[in-house]
């Protein structure tokens, strides 16, 4: 079964054709990073304008790379949330029209569920149940994947997402947008023990996250040093901050897997491209004999292949959409 996936939830316009949920026939991504860079972040109106002009081109390219025609497509999948509403609307409207004109099923996909499914593409043997740490610019979630379309949120950030904290700290130490990858690169050169930033664990036993306190601690550190005229190394700030985030993510992931007797852990979302996070998690899990999966980098960041992959399992569980599908910017897990 060939599913054409469409993803426009933020600043990447992507289309992909995936066979039977696991085999990627094409995955075309048009990134707008260069366009938004000068504004220091994604401008929703500009993102929407670009999606509109990009989307037919990206879809055409995806068909061409897969050497297929519209007639070879069995279903259309589209991200219908969460994300920027104006950006989502372009993909959803376009996908609905494709599905109607071609007279094939339409499958709305939750963007976060898509991120989790990115793991199925690389690891053909991976099957639920497993635990997934989803970390991105908008989300930090510990999710128990009970079945392909059955999820339980074990923990989540009560304030900033991990990626959001990365972006903010990157901005204040002058790294620009997108902050996460630039901060990670700088952190590699720094000493992660130079500054002891707080690790916030919430109440004992909690699997929730909070990164706003850490963010404030870094900002205070920078302000105090500035007022007192003390020089500091941005690379040490980057490394120490990153270590504080990674320690908490690793510890809570480990705790969640033990609490739930799960011996398979996957990682997903834009921040999962962070090499230091992958290494730290993998090492910690190995000690406990827990299997660790991570998607290829290209499927960590936003892409349509993961949407088409999850859509296959939605389809098998008869979770279909129809021509009333709407963009839902705050779409919740496990809901249609």
């Amino acid at each position: 079964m060939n599913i054409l996936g469409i993803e426009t939830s933020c600043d990447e316009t992507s289309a992909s054709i995936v066979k039977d949920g696991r085999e990627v026939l094409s995955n075309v991504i048009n990134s707008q990073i260069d366009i938004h860079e000068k504004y220091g972040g994604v401008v929703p109106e500009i993102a929407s304008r670009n999606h509109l002009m990009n989307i037919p081109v990206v879809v055409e390219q995806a068909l061409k790379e897969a050497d297929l025609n519209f007639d070879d497509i069995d279903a259309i999948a589209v991200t219908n949330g969460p994300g920027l509403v104006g950006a989502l609307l372009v993909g959803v409207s376009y996908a609905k029209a494709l599905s109607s004109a071609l007279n094939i099923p339409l499958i709305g996909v939750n963007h976060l569920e898509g991120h989790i499914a990115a793991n199925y593409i690389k690891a053909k043997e991976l099957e639920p149940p497993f635990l997934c740490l989803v970390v991105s610019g908008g989300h930090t979630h510990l999710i128990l994947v009970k079945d392909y379309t059955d999820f339980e949120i074990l923990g989540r950030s009560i304030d900033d997402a991990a990626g959001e904290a990365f972006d903010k700290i990157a901005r204040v130490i002058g790294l620009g947008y997108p902050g996460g990858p630039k901060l990670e690169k700088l952190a590699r050169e720094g000493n992660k023990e130079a500054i002891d930033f707080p690790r916030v664990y919430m109440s004992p036993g909690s699997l929730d996250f909070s990164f706003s306190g850490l963010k404030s601690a870094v900002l205070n550190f920078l302000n105090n040093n500035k007022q007192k005229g003390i020089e500091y190394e941005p690379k040490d700030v980057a490394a120490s901050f990153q270590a504080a985030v990674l320690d908490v993510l690793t510890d809570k992931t480990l705790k969640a897997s033990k609490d739930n007797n799960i011996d398979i852990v996957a990682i997903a979302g834009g921040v999962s491209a962070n090499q230091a996070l992958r290494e730290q998690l993998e090492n910690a899990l190995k000690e406990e004999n827990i299997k660790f999966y991570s998607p290829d980098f290209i499927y960590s960041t936003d892409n349509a292949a993961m949407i088409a992959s999850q859509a296959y399992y939605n389809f098998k569980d008869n979770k279909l959409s129809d021509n009333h599908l709407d963009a839902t910017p705050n779409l919740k897990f496990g809901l249609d």
Partner: protein
Amino acid sequence: MKILAIDTATNVMSAAVLSEKKLISEDIIDYKLKHSKTLMPTLDSILKSVELSYFDFDYFAAVNGPGSFTGLRIGLSTIKALAQVTNKPVIPVSTLESLAYNISFSNGIICPILDARREQVYTALFESSNNGTIKRLTEDSALYLSELRDRLKGIDKPIFLLGDGVDKYAEDLESFKNLIIVPAYLRTCKASSAGACALSHLDNAKTYKTIEPSYLRPSYAEEKN
């Protein structure tokens, strides 16, 4: 020759199927703003009732602005997909010119105004003759009311005011004695007018890749930069 025309530029969502010879079907909904949900079911339902498939059209016509940025994108995303799958051309239609086609036999000056917020209206002037032809006099633009008043000074023909800006701004234009407020049932956007307008602009056909919205304004972030 069959055309499927849509208009999602304002609070009104409208779709029509027509040919040179007849208006086959039309739907106009001015009820809350939820084009993203209603457009596709409306189109599917129209096609079902007139027993047509999306592949049966020679042209698609889409109102491409000015108007609500989001509304325009919902309409154009939809039309781009339809045109791409069926490999048919798309005729872009100005929201304002389409409104002029609502009253093409009025024999005077037609002045559509759309609420553009920030104390501005999207507007243009058209001249209609008593044989139904529409001639464009000015380009689509966003004007302050004072600029519009200056533009209307010195016109001695009847001036027909219509569009969704009428409710808000008609009072400000009362001093023009030759101003005629078009009655409500002819005042708002409808896809049959867009289709009729498209029929007279077949030479302006675009592809699913090249059809683009006419926003008339950059995004707020670009304006500030």
